[in-house]
Protein backbone atom coordinates (compact mmCIF):
# COMPACT_ATOMS: atom_id res chain seq x y z
CA UNK A 1 0.00 0.00 0.00
CA UNK A 2 1.65 3.20 -1.07
CA UNK A 3 -0.70 6.02 -0.33
CA UNK A 4 0.98 9.40 -0.27
CA UNK A 5 1.17 11.25 3.01
CA UNK A 6 -1.50 13.87 2.61
CA UNK A 7 -3.79 15.95 4.73
CA UNK A 8 -6.33 13.15 4.78
CA UNK A 9 -4.07 10.61 6.35
CA UNK A 10 -2.02 12.91 8.59
CA UNK A 11 -4.64 11.75 11.07
CA UNK A 12 -3.53 8.15 10.70
CA UNK A 13 0.08 9.23 11.15
CA UNK A 14 -0.70 11.18 14.31
CA UNK A 15 -2.93 8.54 15.87
CA UNK A 16 -0.63 5.60 15.16
CA UNK A 17 2.72 7.32 15.47
CA UNK A 18 1.99 10.39 17.56
CA UNK A 19 2.51 9.21 21.15
CA UNK A 20 5.54 7.03 20.54
CA UNK A 21 7.28 9.41 18.15
CA UNK A 22 6.65 12.32 20.50
CA UNK A 23 8.09 10.43 23.48
CA UNK A 24 11.02 9.12 21.47
CA UNK A 25 11.88 12.60 20.22
CA UNK A 26 11.51 14.23 23.61
CA UNK A 27 13.45 11.58 25.51
CA UNK A 28 16.09 10.42 23.03
CA UNK A 29 16.57 12.77 20.06
CA UNK A 30 16.43 16.15 21.79
CA UNK A 31 18.57 15.15 24.81
CA UNK A 32 21.10 13.63 22.41
CA UNK A 33 21.44 16.87 20.46
CA UNK A 34 21.39 19.04 23.57
CA UNK A 35 23.96 16.67 25.09
CA UNK A 36 26.36 17.14 22.22
CA UNK A 37 25.90 20.89 22.43
CA UNK A 38 26.44 20.73 26.18
CA UNK A 39 29.92 19.26 25.78
CA UNK A 40 31.00 22.47 24.05
CA UNK A 41 29.77 24.84 26.75
CA UNK A 42 30.69 25.64 30.32
CA UNK A 43 27.14 25.52 31.55
CA UNK A 44 26.84 26.31 35.26
CA UNK A 45 23.88 24.78 37.03
CA UNK A 46 23.69 27.26 39.88
CA UNK A 47 23.99 30.52 37.94
CA UNK A 48 22.54 29.25 34.67
CA UNK A 49 25.42 30.93 32.81
CA UNK A 50 26.56 29.23 29.68
CA UNK A 51 28.92 30.07 26.85
CA UNK A 52 30.59 28.12 24.09
CA UNK A 53 34.12 26.99 24.96
CA UNK A 54 34.97 24.76 22.02
CA UNK A 55 36.75 21.55 22.91
CA UNK A 56 37.63 22.72 26.41
CA UNK A 57 35.61 20.01 28.13
CA UNK A 58 37.12 17.24 26.02
CA UNK A 59 40.62 18.56 26.76
CA UNK A 60 39.73 18.49 30.42
CA UNK A 61 38.53 14.91 30.13
CA UNK A 62 41.84 13.81 28.66
CA UNK A 63 43.82 15.84 31.13
CA UNK A 64 41.87 14.47 34.09
CA UNK A 65 44.15 11.77 35.49
CA UNK A 66 41.38 10.50 37.75
CA UNK A 67 38.97 9.91 34.87
CA UNK A 68 41.64 8.29 32.75
CA UNK A 69 42.67 5.93 35.49
CA UNK A 70 39.02 5.10 36.13
CA UNK A 71 38.52 4.50 32.43
CA UNK A 72 41.47 2.11 32.52
CA UNK A 73 40.00 0.45 35.63
CA UNK A 74 36.71 0.11 33.73
CA UNK A 75 38.43 -1.42 30.71
CA UNK A 76 40.16 -4.05 32.87
CA UNK A 77 36.90 -4.76 34.67
CA UNK A 78 35.00 -5.11 31.38
CA UNK A 79 37.67 -7.38 29.93
CA UNK A 80 37.66 -9.86 32.81
CA UNK A 81 33.89 -9.75 33.24
CA UNK A 82 33.29 -10.45 29.55
CA UNK A 83 35.83 -13.28 29.39
CA UNK A 84 34.77 -14.98 32.62
CA UNK A 85 31.03 -14.66 32.03
CA UNK A 86 31.26 -15.90 28.45
CA UNK A 87 33.51 -18.88 29.17
CA UNK A 88 31.27 -20.08 31.99
CA UNK A 89 28.09 -19.41 30.02
CA UNK A 90 29.47 -21.27 27.00
CA UNK A 91 30.33 -24.42 28.90
CA UNK A 92 27.21 -24.45 31.06
CA UNK A 93 25.13 -24.03 27.90
CA UNK A 94 27.06 -26.83 26.24
CA UNK A 95 26.32 -29.13 29.17
CA UNK A 96 22.65 -28.12 29.06
CA UNK A 97 21.85 -28.74 25.39
CA UNK A 98 22.08 -32.49 25.29
CA UNK A 99 18.51 -33.32 26.16
CA UNK A 100 19.45 -34.79 29.54
CA UNK A 101 17.10 -35.11 32.47
CA UNK A 102 16.14 -31.97 34.37
CA UNK A 103 17.75 -29.64 31.86
CA UNK A 104 14.83 -27.23 32.04
CA UNK A 105 15.23 -26.95 35.80
CA UNK A 106 18.95 -26.40 35.58
CA UNK A 107 18.50 -23.66 32.99
CA UNK A 108 15.84 -22.01 35.12
CA UNK A 109 18.17 -22.16 38.10
CA UNK A 110 21.17 -20.65 36.37
CA UNK A 111 19.02 -17.83 35.08
CA UNK A 112 17.65 -16.69 38.48
CA UNK A 113 20.27 -13.99 39.25
CA UNK A 114 18.88 -12.08 36.26
CA UNK A 115 15.59 -11.51 38.00
CA UNK A 116 17.37 -9.42 40.57
CA UNK A 117 18.18 -5.79 39.89
CA UNK A 118 21.71 -4.45 40.28
CA UNK A 119 21.01 -2.73 43.59
CA UNK A 120 19.72 -5.86 45.30
CA UNK A 121 22.42 -7.97 43.70
CA UNK A 122 25.11 -5.55 44.85
CA UNK A 123 23.89 -5.60 48.45
CA UNK A 124 23.59 -9.36 48.41
CA UNK A 125 27.25 -9.70 47.46
CA UNK A 126 28.23 -6.89 49.77
CA UNK A 127 26.85 -8.93 52.68
CA UNK A 128 28.77 -12.00 51.53
CA UNK A 129 32.06 -10.21 50.92
CA UNK A 130 32.02 -8.07 54.02
CA UNK A 131 30.59 -10.60 56.51
CA UNK A 132 30.40 -14.22 55.41
CA UNK A 133 33.77 -14.62 53.69
CA UNK A 134 35.78 -12.91 56.48
CA UNK A 135 34.00 -15.21 58.96
CA UNK A 136 35.21 -18.22 56.96
CA UNK A 137 38.66 -16.74 56.60
CA UNK A 138 39.02 -16.26 60.36
CA UNK A 139 37.52 -19.58 61.30
CA UNK A 140 39.68 -21.68 59.01
CA UNK A 141 42.70 -19.40 58.84
CA UNK A 142 42.39 -18.69 55.11
CA UNK A 143 44.46 -15.57 54.54
CA UNK A 144 42.62 -14.70 51.36
CA UNK A 145 39.36 -14.04 53.16
CA UNK A 146 40.47 -12.72 56.53
CA UNK A 147 39.70 -9.14 55.73
CA UNK A 148 36.73 -7.98 53.68
CA UNK A 149 37.47 -7.95 49.99
CA UNK A 150 35.71 -4.62 49.71
CA UNK A 151 38.28 -2.72 51.76
CA UNK A 152 41.15 -3.27 49.35
CA UNK A 153 41.25 -1.96 45.78
CA UNK A 154 42.71 -5.11 44.25
CA UNK A 155 40.25 -7.52 45.82
CA UNK A 156 37.30 -5.13 45.47
CA UNK A 157 38.03 -5.16 41.75
CA UNK A 158 37.53 -8.94 41.68
CA UNK A 159 34.48 -8.67 43.91
CA UNK A 160 32.89 -6.39 41.30
CA UNK A 161 33.75 -8.82 38.53
CA UNK A 162 32.40 -11.83 40.42
CA UNK A 163 29.09 -10.11 41.20
CA UNK A 164 28.59 -8.90 37.62
CA UNK A 165 29.66 -12.14 35.97
CA UNK A 166 27.43 -14.13 38.33
CA UNK A 167 24.42 -12.31 36.92
CA UNK A 168 25.53 -12.28 33.29
CA UNK A 169 26.28 -16.01 33.08
CA UNK A 170 22.64 -17.09 33.09
CA UNK A 171 21.60 -14.52 30.53
CA UNK A 172 24.39 -15.40 28.11
CA UNK A 173 23.77 -19.10 28.72
CA UNK A 174 20.26 -18.73 27.28
CA UNK A 175 21.63 -17.18 24.09
CA UNK A 176 24.37 -19.80 23.75
CA UNK A 177 21.77 -22.54 24.18
CA UNK A 178 19.78 -21.00 21.33
CA UNK A 179 22.98 -20.95 19.27
CA UNK A 180 23.83 -24.58 20.01
CA UNK A 181 20.32 -25.73 19.21
CA UNK A 182 20.94 -24.33 15.74
CA UNK A 183 23.93 -26.61 15.14
CA UNK A 184 22.59 -29.35 12.85
CA UNK A 185 22.52 -32.76 14.48
CA UNK A 186 23.68 -34.59 11.35
CA UNK A 187 26.94 -32.63 11.29
CA UNK A 188 27.65 -33.66 14.87
CA UNK A 189 26.70 -37.24 14.09
CA UNK A 190 28.95 -37.35 11.03
CA UNK A 191 31.81 -36.04 13.13
CA UNK A 192 31.35 -38.68 15.79
CA UNK A 193 31.17 -41.41 13.15
CA UNK A 194 34.44 -40.10 11.76
CA UNK A 195 35.83 -40.54 15.23
CA UNK A 196 36.22 -36.91 16.24
CA UNK A 197 36.83 -36.48 19.96
CA UNK A 198 34.77 -34.21 22.19
CA UNK A 199 37.40 -31.49 22.12
CA UNK A 200 37.74 -31.61 18.33
CA UNK A 201 33.96 -31.38 17.96
CA UNK A 202 33.81 -28.24 20.09
CA UNK A 203 36.85 -26.67 18.48
CA UNK A 204 36.13 -27.54 14.82
CA UNK A 205 32.34 -27.69 14.63
CA UNK A 206 30.47 -26.09 17.49
CA UNK A 207 32.66 -23.00 17.85
CA UNK A 208 32.67 -21.98 14.16
CA UNK A 209 28.94 -22.65 13.79
CA UNK A 210 28.00 -20.60 16.84
CA UNK A 211 29.96 -17.49 15.92
CA UNK A 212 26.75 -15.43 15.59
CA UNK A 213 25.76 -16.35 19.16
CA UNK A 214 29.27 -15.56 20.37
CA UNK A 215 29.17 -12.15 18.67
CA UNK A 216 25.84 -11.33 20.29
CA UNK A 217 26.94 -12.54 23.70
CA UNK A 218 30.16 -10.58 23.65
CA UNK A 219 28.30 -7.51 22.45
CA UNK A 220 25.70 -7.82 25.23
CA UNK A 221 28.26 -8.48 27.94
CA UNK A 222 30.43 -5.61 26.69
CA UNK A 223 27.66 -3.07 26.70
CA UNK A 224 26.16 -4.25 29.98
CA UNK A 225 29.46 -4.22 31.85
CA UNK A 226 30.60 -0.91 30.39
CA UNK A 227 27.47 0.68 31.78
CA UNK A 228 27.53 -0.95 35.21
CA UNK A 229 26.25 1.49 37.75
CA UNK A 230 24.04 0.05 40.44
CA UNK A 231 26.16 -3.00 41.29
CA UNK A 232 29.05 -0.60 41.73
CA UNK A 233 26.98 1.71 43.91
CA UNK A 234 25.66 -1.05 46.16
CA UNK A 235 28.82 -3.15 46.38
CA UNK A 236 31.64 -0.67 46.94
CA UNK A 237 30.18 2.84 46.57
CA UNK A 238 33.34 3.52 44.58
CA UNK A 239 35.45 2.92 47.69
CA UNK A 240 37.97 2.49 49.20
CA UNK A 241 38.97 6.09 48.41
CA UNK A 242 37.21 6.27 45.02
CA UNK A 243 39.51 3.54 43.73
CA UNK A 244 36.72 1.32 42.41
CA UNK A 245 34.64 3.90 40.59
CA UNK A 246 33.63 2.52 37.22
CA UNK A 247 33.19 5.03 34.40
CA UNK A 248 29.42 5.40 34.72
CA UNK A 249 29.62 5.86 38.46
CA UNK A 250 32.25 8.53 37.96
CA UNK A 251 30.11 10.34 35.39
CA UNK A 252 27.08 10.41 37.66
CA UNK A 253 29.19 11.78 40.51
CA UNK A 254 30.81 14.36 38.28
CA UNK A 255 27.59 15.66 36.80
CA UNK A 256 25.09 15.48 39.62
CA UNK A 257 27.25 15.84 42.72
CA UNK A 258 29.90 18.27 41.59
CA UNK A 259 27.58 19.97 39.10
CA UNK A 260 30.03 19.77 36.21
CA UNK A 261 27.49 18.95 33.56
CA UNK A 262 29.64 19.84 30.54
CA UNK A 263 32.65 17.79 31.63
CA UNK A 264 30.44 14.90 32.76
CA UNK A 265 28.67 14.88 29.41
CA UNK A 266 31.98 14.99 27.53
CA UNK A 267 33.07 11.98 29.59
CA UNK A 268 29.86 10.17 28.67
CA UNK A 269 30.47 10.86 24.98
CA UNK A 270 34.06 9.59 25.28
CA UNK A 271 32.83 6.46 27.06
CA UNK A 272 30.24 5.92 24.33
CA UNK A 273 32.93 6.22 21.66
CA UNK A 274 35.13 3.70 23.46
CA UNK A 275 32.26 1.21 23.80
CA UNK A 276 31.25 1.67 20.16
CA UNK A 277 34.78 1.16 18.84
CA UNK A 278 35.38 -1.98 20.91
CA UNK A 279 31.96 -3.46 20.15
CA UNK A 280 32.22 -2.87 16.40
CA UNK A 281 35.80 -4.17 16.23
CA UNK A 282 34.95 -7.40 18.03
CA UNK A 283 31.93 -8.13 15.88
CA UNK A 284 33.90 -7.33 12.70
CA UNK A 285 36.76 -9.62 13.70
CA UNK A 286 34.54 -12.45 14.87
CA UNK A 287 32.21 -12.27 11.87
CA UNK A 288 35.18 -13.17 9.69
CA UNK A 289 35.36 -16.52 11.48
CA UNK A 290 31.76 -17.30 10.66
CA UNK A 291 31.12 -20.36 8.45
CA UNK A 292 28.08 -21.89 6.79
CA UNK A 293 27.03 -25.28 8.04
Amino acid at each position, binding site marked *: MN*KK*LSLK*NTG*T*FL*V*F*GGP*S*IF*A*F*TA*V*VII*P*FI*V*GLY*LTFTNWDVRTGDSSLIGFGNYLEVFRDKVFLSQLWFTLKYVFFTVVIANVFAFF*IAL*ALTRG*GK*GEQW*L*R*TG*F*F*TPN*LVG*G*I*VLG*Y*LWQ*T*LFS*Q*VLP*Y*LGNKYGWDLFQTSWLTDTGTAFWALIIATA*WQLVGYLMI*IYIAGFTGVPGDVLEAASIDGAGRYAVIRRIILPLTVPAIV*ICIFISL*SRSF*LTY*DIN*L*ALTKGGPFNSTELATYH*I*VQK*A*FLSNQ*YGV*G*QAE*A*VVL*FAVVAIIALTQSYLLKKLEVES
Partner: protein
Amino acid sequence: MNGNQRILSGLKTGLLYLLLFAFLTPFLLIIMNSFKTTQQFFESPLSLPTTIDFKNYASAFENMDFMQGFMNSLIITGISVFVIIIFSAMTGYLFVRYKWKVNSILFFLMLASMALPFQVLMIPMVMLYGNMGLLNTKLTLLFMYLGFGVPFGVFTFHGFIKGIPYELEESAFIEGSSTLRTFFSIVLPLLRPVFVTLLVLDVLWIWNDYLLPSLVLLSPNQKTLPLSTYTFFSSYSVDYAPLMAGLIMTIIPVLVIYLFLQKQIIKGITEGALK
Protein backbone atom coordinates in the same frame (compact mmCIF):
# COMPACT_ATOMS: atom_id res chain seq x y z
CA MET B 1 22.54 -46.50 26.29
CA ASN B 2 24.38 -49.26 28.13
CA GLY B 3 24.89 -49.43 31.89
CA ASN B 4 28.18 -47.59 31.95
CA GLN B 5 26.90 -44.74 29.81
CA ARG B 6 23.87 -44.43 32.03
CA ILE B 7 26.02 -44.13 35.13
CA LEU B 8 28.23 -41.60 33.36
CA SER B 9 25.31 -39.43 32.28
CA GLY B 10 23.79 -39.69 35.75
CA LEU B 11 27.10 -38.54 37.16
CA LYS B 12 27.16 -35.56 34.80
CA THR B 13 23.66 -34.53 35.78
CA GLY B 14 24.65 -34.88 39.42
CA LEU B 15 27.67 -32.67 38.88
CA LEU B 16 25.52 -30.06 37.15
CA TYR B 17 23.11 -29.97 40.07
CA LEU B 18 26.06 -29.58 42.42
CA LEU B 19 27.33 -26.70 40.30
CA LEU B 20 23.89 -25.11 40.36
CA PHE B 21 23.79 -25.48 44.13
CA ALA B 22 27.14 -23.71 44.46
CA PHE B 23 25.92 -21.07 42.02
CA LEU B 24 22.83 -20.35 44.08
CA THR B 25 24.59 -20.39 47.47
CA PRO B 26 24.50 -16.59 47.75
CA PHE B 27 20.68 -16.71 47.70
CA LEU B 28 20.57 -19.62 50.14
CA LEU B 29 22.88 -17.86 52.62
CA ILE B 30 20.78 -14.72 52.53
CA ILE B 31 17.55 -16.67 53.03
CA MET B 32 18.98 -18.70 55.90
CA ASN B 33 20.34 -15.70 57.71
CA SER B 34 17.22 -13.61 57.23
CA PHE B 35 15.64 -15.77 59.94
CA LYS B 36 18.38 -15.24 62.53
CA THR B 37 19.19 -12.29 64.71
CA THR B 38 22.05 -10.07 63.59
CA GLN B 39 24.07 -11.42 66.53
CA GLN B 40 23.54 -15.03 65.40
CA PHE B 41 24.48 -14.05 61.87
CA PHE B 42 27.81 -12.61 62.99
CA GLU B 43 28.53 -15.67 65.13
CA SER B 44 27.68 -18.39 62.62
CA PRO B 45 26.57 -17.24 59.18
CA LEU B 46 26.71 -20.76 57.79
CA SER B 47 24.50 -22.57 60.29
CA LEU B 48 20.85 -23.22 59.67
CA PRO B 49 18.46 -20.99 61.60
CA THR B 50 17.21 -22.63 64.79
CA THR B 51 13.79 -21.04 64.66
CA ILE B 52 11.73 -19.73 61.79
CA ASP B 53 10.28 -16.42 62.77
CA PHE B 54 9.45 -13.52 60.59
CA LYS B 55 10.33 -10.61 62.81
CA ASN B 56 13.15 -9.47 60.52
CA TYR B 57 10.65 -9.46 57.71
CA ALA B 58 8.17 -7.47 59.75
CA SER B 59 10.87 -4.99 60.70
CA ALA B 60 12.11 -4.65 57.11
CA PHE B 61 8.57 -4.35 55.81
CA GLU B 62 7.97 -1.39 58.07
CA ASN B 63 11.38 0.30 57.98
CA MET B 64 11.91 0.22 54.27
CA ASP B 65 8.32 1.27 53.61
CA PHE B 66 7.95 -1.85 51.54
CA MET B 67 4.30 -1.34 50.67
CA GLN B 68 4.87 2.14 49.29
CA GLY B 69 7.89 1.07 47.23
CA PHE B 70 6.03 -1.95 45.99
CA MET B 71 2.95 0.04 44.96
CA ASN B 72 5.05 2.70 43.21
CA SER B 73 7.02 0.03 41.35
CA LEU B 74 3.84 -1.78 40.44
CA ILE B 75 2.13 1.34 39.07
CA ILE B 76 5.18 2.55 37.18
CA THR B 77 6.11 -0.82 35.72
CA GLY B 78 2.52 -1.79 34.91
CA ILE B 79 1.54 1.41 33.14
CA SER B 80 4.88 1.91 31.36
CA VAL B 81 4.94 -1.59 29.96
CA PHE B 82 1.31 -1.40 28.83
CA VAL B 83 1.83 1.95 27.14
CA ILE B 84 5.10 0.90 25.49
CA ILE B 85 3.51 -2.22 24.04
CA ILE B 86 0.34 -0.58 22.68
CA PHE B 87 2.02 2.46 21.16
CA SER B 88 4.94 0.46 19.75
CA ALA B 89 2.53 -1.94 18.09
CA MET B 90 0.62 0.95 16.49
CA THR B 91 3.78 2.65 15.30
CA GLY B 92 5.24 -0.62 14.03
CA TYR B 93 2.05 -1.10 12.02
CA LEU B 94 2.23 2.44 10.65
CA PHE B 95 5.85 1.94 9.56
CA VAL B 96 5.15 -1.35 7.82
CA ARG B 97 1.94 -0.41 6.02
CA TYR B 98 2.64 3.20 5.06
CA LYS B 99 5.90 3.60 3.22
CA TRP B 100 6.15 7.36 3.60
CA LYS B 101 9.57 8.96 3.59
CA VAL B 102 9.11 10.36 7.09
CA ASN B 103 8.34 6.88 8.37
CA SER B 104 11.50 5.33 7.06
CA ILE B 105 13.58 8.18 8.48
CA LEU B 106 11.95 7.76 11.87
CA PHE B 107 12.39 4.02 11.78
CA PHE B 108 16.05 4.43 10.95
CA LEU B 109 16.53 6.90 13.83
CA MET B 110 14.91 4.45 16.23
CA LEU B 111 17.14 1.61 15.09
CA ALA B 112 20.23 3.78 15.43
CA SER B 113 19.20 4.97 18.89
CA MET B 114 19.27 1.43 20.25
CA ALA B 115 23.05 1.60 20.18
CA LEU B 116 23.03 4.73 22.35
CA PRO B 117 23.86 4.07 25.98
CA PHE B 118 21.64 5.74 28.56
CA GLN B 119 24.66 7.52 30.00
CA VAL B 120 24.89 9.78 26.94
CA LEU B 121 21.33 10.96 27.44
CA MET B 122 20.96 11.17 31.19
CA ILE B 123 22.71 14.47 31.91
CA PRO B 124 20.93 16.58 29.25
CA MET B 125 17.68 14.83 30.11
CA VAL B 126 17.83 15.68 33.79
CA MET B 127 18.90 19.19 32.87
CA LEU B 128 16.08 19.78 30.37
CA TYR B 129 13.30 18.24 32.42
CA GLY B 130 14.64 19.86 35.57
CA ASN B 131 14.54 23.28 33.92
CA MET B 132 10.96 22.74 32.90
CA GLY B 133 10.11 21.71 36.44
CA LEU B 134 8.95 18.29 35.30
CA LEU B 135 11.05 16.12 37.58
CA ASN B 136 9.70 14.30 40.59
CA THR B 137 6.45 13.03 39.15
CA LYS B 138 5.60 9.50 38.16
CA LEU B 139 4.14 10.82 34.93
CA THR B 140 7.52 12.10 33.72
CA LEU B 141 9.13 8.77 34.56
CA LEU B 142 6.41 6.92 32.64
CA PHE B 143 6.92 9.22 29.68
CA MET B 144 10.67 8.56 29.75
CA TYR B 145 10.20 4.82 29.87
CA LEU B 146 7.91 5.16 26.87
CA GLY B 147 10.56 7.11 24.98
CA PHE B 148 13.31 4.63 25.81
CA GLY B 149 11.15 1.55 25.30
CA VAL B 150 9.64 2.55 21.96
CA PRO B 151 12.62 1.86 19.65
CA PHE B 152 13.00 -1.78 20.65
CA GLY B 153 9.22 -2.23 20.73
CA VAL B 154 8.68 -0.75 17.27
CA PHE B 155 11.59 -2.77 15.91
CA THR B 156 10.18 -6.01 17.29
CA PHE B 157 6.63 -5.38 16.08
CA HIS B 158 7.89 -4.16 12.72
CA GLY B 159 9.60 -7.48 12.04
CA PHE B 160 6.51 -9.44 13.01
CA ILE B 161 3.89 -7.31 11.22
CA LYS B 162 5.86 -7.58 7.96
CA GLY B 163 5.03 -11.27 7.99
CA ILE B 164 1.27 -10.74 8.26
CA PRO B 165 -0.48 -10.92 4.85
CA TYR B 166 -2.13 -7.65 3.91
CA GLU B 167 -5.20 -9.41 2.49
CA LEU B 168 -6.60 -9.84 5.99
CA GLU B 169 -6.83 -6.10 6.48
CA GLU B 170 -7.84 -5.40 2.89
CA SER B 171 -11.10 -7.27 3.19
CA ALA B 172 -11.91 -5.34 6.35
CA PHE B 173 -11.20 -2.04 4.59
CA ILE B 174 -13.48 -3.03 1.71
CA GLU B 175 -16.26 -3.57 4.20
CA GLY B 176 -15.68 -0.04 5.40
CA SER B 177 -13.74 -0.62 8.60
CA SER B 178 -11.52 2.29 9.67
CA THR B 179 -7.76 1.90 9.97
CA LEU B 180 -7.97 2.16 13.75
CA ARG B 181 -10.71 -0.43 13.99
CA THR B 182 -8.97 -2.78 11.58
CA PHE B 183 -5.80 -2.51 13.60
CA PHE B 184 -7.44 -3.25 16.91
CA SER B 185 -9.77 -6.00 15.77
CA ILE B 186 -7.61 -7.79 13.18
CA VAL B 187 -3.93 -6.98 13.56
CA LEU B 188 -3.58 -6.63 17.33
CA PRO B 189 -4.84 -10.13 18.20
CA LEU B 190 -2.26 -11.60 15.81
CA LEU B 191 0.56 -9.88 17.66
CA ARG B 192 0.20 -11.90 20.84
CA PRO B 193 3.56 -13.72 20.66
CA VAL B 194 5.41 -10.41 20.40
CA PHE B 195 3.44 -9.01 23.36
CA VAL B 196 4.80 -11.72 25.60
CA THR B 197 8.40 -11.17 24.52
CA LEU B 198 8.19 -7.43 25.07
CA LEU B 199 6.24 -7.80 28.30
CA VAL B 200 8.92 -10.00 29.78
CA LEU B 201 11.89 -7.89 28.70
CA ASP B 202 10.30 -4.59 29.66
CA VAL B 203 9.06 -5.80 33.04
CA LEU B 204 12.50 -7.07 34.03
CA TRP B 205 14.09 -3.83 32.84
CA ILE B 206 11.70 -1.35 34.44
CA TRP B 207 11.03 -3.23 37.67
CA ASN B 208 14.74 -3.50 38.44
CA ASP B 209 15.88 -0.13 37.11
CA TYR B 210 17.65 2.05 39.60
CA LEU B 211 19.52 4.85 37.82
CA LEU B 212 16.65 6.53 35.95
CA PRO B 213 14.18 6.62 38.88
CA SER B 214 16.98 7.80 41.16
CA LEU B 215 17.48 10.80 38.88
CA VAL B 216 13.80 11.57 38.33
CA LEU B 217 12.01 10.72 41.55
CA LEU B 218 13.32 12.82 44.36
CA SER B 219 10.79 12.75 47.17
CA PRO B 220 10.61 9.80 49.59
CA ASN B 221 6.97 8.92 48.90
CA GLN B 222 7.68 8.44 45.18
CA LYS B 223 10.35 5.79 45.69
CA THR B 224 10.29 2.58 43.71
CA LEU B 225 11.44 -0.67 45.28
CA PRO B 226 15.10 -0.44 44.16
CA LEU B 227 15.23 3.09 45.58
CA SER B 228 13.73 1.97 48.89
CA THR B 229 16.26 -0.85 49.05
CA TYR B 230 19.05 1.65 48.57
CA THR B 231 17.79 3.99 51.30
CA PHE B 232 17.16 1.09 53.64
CA PHE B 233 20.70 -0.23 53.23
CA SER B 234 22.30 3.18 53.57
CA SER B 235 20.50 3.92 56.80
CA TYR B 236 20.56 0.48 58.45
CA SER B 237 24.05 -0.54 57.45
CA VAL B 238 25.01 -2.60 60.52
CA ASP B 239 21.80 -4.40 61.40
CA TYR B 240 22.21 -7.18 58.87
CA ALA B 241 19.32 -9.47 59.74
CA PRO B 242 16.47 -7.14 58.69
CA LEU B 243 18.54 -6.01 55.72
CA MET B 244 18.67 -9.56 54.42
CA ALA B 245 14.95 -9.96 54.97
CA GLY B 246 14.50 -6.77 52.96
CA LEU B 247 16.55 -8.20 50.08
CA ILE B 248 14.50 -11.38 50.04
CA MET B 249 11.25 -9.40 50.05
CA THR B 250 12.34 -7.34 47.04
CA ILE B 251 13.27 -10.49 45.16
CA ILE B 252 10.01 -12.33 45.87
CA PRO B 253 7.69 -10.38 43.51
CA VAL B 254 9.88 -11.06 40.46
CA LEU B 255 10.45 -14.63 41.56
CA VAL B 256 6.69 -15.22 41.63
CA ILE B 257 6.34 -13.86 38.09
CA TYR B 258 9.28 -16.01 37.02
CA LEU B 259 7.77 -19.20 38.38
CA PHE B 260 4.62 -18.57 36.35
CA LEU B 261 6.26 -17.32 33.18
CA GLN B 262 9.65 -19.04 33.10
CA LYS B 263 9.20 -20.58 29.67
CA GLN B 264 8.12 -17.27 28.15
CA ILE B 265 10.87 -15.39 29.94
CA ILE B 266 13.54 -17.65 28.51
CA LYS B 267 11.91 -17.50 25.10
CA GLY B 268 11.63 -13.73 25.35
CA ILE B 269 15.31 -13.34 26.19
CA THR B 270 16.29 -15.59 23.30
CA GLU B 271 14.14 -13.75 20.80
CA GLY B 272 15.05 -10.35 22.16
CA ALA B 273 18.75 -11.09 21.90
CA LEU B 274 18.71 -12.68 18.48
CA LYS B 275 16.94 -9.75 16.85
